């Protein structure tokens, strides 16, 4: 029995592996999957599921009753493949983007030239929920604010890759990218021999170097810690994973203490020990009850004081989230031109800023073809997916937009590309996106590929794991084997 690629329904979408009745550039992989046969593929998938369960790769979801459940990471073994030549362009595009965003954030907390020069509207900043007045005038090490950025990429029906959004607060997922590779190596070793995907596992050491470069005491061996809200956070697996891989302490707020000298210490068996760099995985508002929410028990009183005094580095810097705003996203092409005097290498998805009257009118007229997003939600919450919406939902959204146009953007509903995915006992196309991670400090580094997320439900475009999405290993392959037809 073999796999019938002709029966694979990919019409109307760009499939990363299968093109219509023919084969795309990476035809060899299809042949290899065929050679394994469907039964074997299903049994490899089962082996992967067992592996993931035993390795304890989990993420935490919150049920509606308020309880937290530790769920096994959903993973599909068929890899998603990208040619290295394409990736080099993406890599350059992402560096460019994050560089511009860092210059933008630094500008917003200093002279705000971008506003004075009329490139970015003052009213957008005025209504930004992630702008932190506490950060005005602060000079973080190397002038960098977003040290770790996770940008989401999607591919449309014509094969164009777009940036869908930039995550600059506490982007997660990189640990799953690394674990996916490990599991794929265990269950599909023969494919690795043929394709030699470029390795991903240097990320933890790159991350450590990025963090260490921020240390206020460069002469010493820097004490870097990962700050987590604790085991009930949905990304706790990742926090502990990264701390483990970097050989750093994983701390909670209660483990840290800011002394009168404005330095940060952790409580250890030997007494107090100085901390130089905090990779914080807690949102701004919970970082320091002295500066933000006084009731928060997650953070560390005085942390902002220590940061402003330059005695500790925080990554990402507080306030970096100001660029994690979907309206700011809509301005990134202009920001790249303004700060770098260059054209964007990777385009944005065409985006209508509802604050602009023409864009608002267009959006309201075309809602059933658009995806409407509020400026500051994440995890796929609070948005309208036009083609899947009811008339009542569209009317409701129209009211919301008219009430606060600045808070909304609209984009044409994209036909996200697909990758064959094991569903039951056969392969079906499922929509994917891609989240590469960009590290910035004394130099920039982009992950080799990233985390491919899969919408596991048929036809669904929602890839978030909190909404039942899964994932795949992502392979950047050096020389795409030639098409055999």
């Amino acid at each position: 029995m073999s796999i019938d690629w002709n029966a694979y329904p990919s019409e109307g979408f760009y499939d990363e592996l299968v093109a219509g009745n023919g084969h795309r550039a990476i035809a060899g992989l299809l042949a290899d999957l065929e050679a394994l046969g469907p039964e074997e593929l299903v049994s490899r998938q089962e082996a992967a599921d067992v592996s993931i369960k035993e390795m304890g790769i989990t993420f935490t979801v919150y049920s509606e009753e308020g309880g937290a459940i530790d769920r096994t990471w959903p993973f599909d073994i068929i890899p998603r493949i990208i040619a290295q030549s394409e990736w080099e362009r993406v890599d350059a595009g992402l560096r460019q983007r994050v560089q511009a965003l860092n210059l933008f954030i630094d500008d917003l907390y200093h002279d705000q030239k971008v506003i004075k020069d009329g490139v970015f509207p003052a009213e957008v900043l005025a209504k930004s929920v992630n702008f932190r007045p506490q950060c005005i005038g602060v000079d973080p090490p190397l002038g960098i604010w977003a040290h770790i950025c996770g940008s989401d990429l999607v591919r449309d029906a014509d094969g164009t890759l777009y940036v869908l959004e930039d995550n600059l607060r506490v982007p997660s997922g990189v640990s799953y990218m690394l674990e996916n590779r490990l599991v794929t190596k265990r269950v599909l070793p023969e494919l690795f021999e043929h394709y030699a995907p470029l390795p991903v596992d240097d990320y933890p050491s790159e991350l450590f170097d990025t963090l260490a470069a921020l240390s206020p005491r460069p002469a010493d061996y820097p004490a870097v810690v990962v700050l987590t809200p604790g085991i009930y956070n949905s990304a706790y697996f990742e926090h502990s994973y990264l701390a483990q891989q970097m050989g750093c302490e994983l701390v909670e707020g209660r483990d840290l203490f800011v002394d009168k000298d404005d330095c940060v210490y952790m409580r250890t068996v030997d007494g107090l020990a100085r901390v130089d760099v905090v990779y914080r995985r807690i949102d701004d508002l919970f970082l320091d009850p002295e500066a933000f929410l006084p009731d928060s028990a997650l953070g560390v009183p005085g942390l902002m004081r220590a940061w402003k005094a330059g005695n500790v580095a925080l990554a990402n810097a507080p306030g970096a989230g100001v660029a994690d705003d979907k309206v700011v996203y809509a301005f990134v092409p202009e920001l790249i031109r303004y700060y770098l005097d260059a054209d964007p290498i990777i385009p944005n998805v065409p985006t209508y800023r509802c604050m602009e009257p023409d864009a608002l009118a267009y959006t309201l007229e075309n809602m059933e073809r658009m995806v409407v997003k509020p400026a500051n939600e994440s995890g796929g919450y609070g948005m309208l997916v036009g083609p899947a919406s009811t008339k009542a939902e569209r009317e409701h959204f129209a009211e919301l937009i008219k009430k606060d146009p600045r808070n909304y953007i609209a984009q044409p509903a994209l036909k996200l590309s697909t990758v064959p995915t094991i569903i039951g006992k056969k392969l079906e196309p499922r929509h994917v996106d891609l989240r590469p991670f960009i590290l910035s400090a004394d130099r920039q580094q982009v992950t080799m590929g990233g985390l491919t997320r899969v919408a596991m439900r048929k036809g669904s475009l929602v890839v978030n794991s909190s909404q039942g999405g899964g994932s795949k290993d992502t392979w950047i392959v050096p020389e795409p084997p030639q098409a055999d037809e």
Partner: protein
Amino acid sequence: MLSRVAENIYWMARYVERAENTARIVTVNANLLLDLPKGIAPGWRPLVDITGANLLFEEHYKDYSERNVVRFLLADERNSGSIVPALVAARENCRTIRDFVPREVWELLNEIYLFAREDLPKGMTKGGRHAYLKRVIQGAQNINGLLSGTMLHDQGYDFLHLGRFLERADMTTRIIDVRSANLLPEEATELRPFETIQWVSVLKSMTAYQAYRRSEQIRVLRGPVLRFLFQNEAFPRSVVHCIEALRTSLSKLPRNESALRVAGRLKRNLEGTEPRRLNQQQLHAFIDDLQVGIGDLHEELARTWFPPPPETQSQSQTQD
């Protein structure tokens, strides 16, 4: 290392050890009962006595039947000495310090936890019990082996030892206490042949039978068994071995003066006594003393190295 991490490692070790010990006493009891005449067999109650959880048990169960006791010791989530809940707790402790322990340890602990939970129905049957418990014991031993073979032998390892040996010393004294007491009615001469079986079962609860044979070279008798289990320094589950191991780990930690003092008292008490000369009542009092010492040592560890409990922590922060 972080105080909080030290505490988590310590508890992880205690819970793994606890699961193993519980599996051991259930295994041995099941075997012992097969060897003893029906009329005088002590049944299953002594196992609950060993764990000291009688009040809790009686709140929820009508009688000390095999099924009730086995359920209580394998799976009752109200009982922290029960195998599955102990593994849940060990796993949860390990989860909070996953960055610290080698990942193979986390994977193995996770695997044993999944096994203990999913195969529980088999473990609850007479036929499946032995294989179930054996795998729990081996799993715990594998974890200890992996830790000693792969984890950094640094302060974390010292706290791991503290947890393991404190729990083990505690369990050894409990087993001796219960097993030496009411197993057979005294002065029943016709039961002599079974007395040996009783002491053999005590040894076997701790996998000490072979070690006893090799080290004592004498038939199994109350006096030598007690001496062996309390005072043989070479046997890894004897009380003195555990206390020595605790002292070794303590001596490597900073600010250890008062914890070492408490451990020293424990050791002097142990060495200054000849357990085989104690009658049943004196033995019981002696064990009580040891247990109090073990409890004091735990308190001292917590006071010296573990994070302050939440309320006092915020106080001390404002005092600083």
